[in-house]
């Protein structure tokens, strides 16, 4: 079956440009996560959705970052007025909930964003 897909796989943006990153989770997965991963580091949590509800956005680094999942399936992470420090790999993951807790996460291949 299809795994988590993300598009685009690579994005080069000029500083100040807006970008939109898309995530298609595994069908039926309730939970969806966005992470930011800098080179040589572990993934850093950005935000979490349960169906269409954004339950936690405490990891979003600034108000330039916005995420949505309007129908509880596909999600978009938008970054406005990109800065060089936004350059990173953005990972999306989805999972079932088991007993109300986050279970095994399935990760997409990521979008590598480079801001010039």
């Amino acid at each position, binding site marked *: 079956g299809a795994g988590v897909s993300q598009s685009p796989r690579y994005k080069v943006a000029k500083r100040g440009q807006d970008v939109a990153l898309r995530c298609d989770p595994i069908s039926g997965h309730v939970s969806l*996560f966005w*992470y930011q991963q800098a080179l*040589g*580091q*572990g*993934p*850093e*949590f950005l935000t*979490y959705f349960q169906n269409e509800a954004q339950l*936690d956005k*405490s*990891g979003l680094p600034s108000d330039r970052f916005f995420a949505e999942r309007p129908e509880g399936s596909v999600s978009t992470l938008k970054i406005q007025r990109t800065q060089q420090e936004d350059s990173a790999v953005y*990972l999306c*993951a989805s999972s079932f909930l088991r007993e109300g*807790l*986050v*279970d*095994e*996460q*399935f*990760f*997409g*291949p*990521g979008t590598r964003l480079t801001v010039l």
Partner: protein
Amino acid sequence: SQQGEEDPQALSIQEGENATMNCSYKTSINNLQWYRQNSGRGLVHLILIRSNEREKHSGRLRVTLDTSKKSSSLLITASRAADTASYFCATVEDKIIFGKGTRLHILP
């Protein structure tokens, strides 16, 4: 900020040897997960251990959890070249926090 801290940061061993990686964390958890990341396959879930479990096995993987010491270990037995990757622990409570990872290199 990242809660999980893996130790060592990097590890090189001969093929066939066992590899042990450790993870320490700071607060209470519901479960702890280990992931592997390499350039070919991205981040892949390896094993999940719940806070009321002490040990879990999956193939050549063995994970232990000591909640009193707030630590976990991942043991890979009979290592293979394909095990070369970065390994991350992720703690799950009200949110999920990944450590910085251990870079494992298996020497032929």
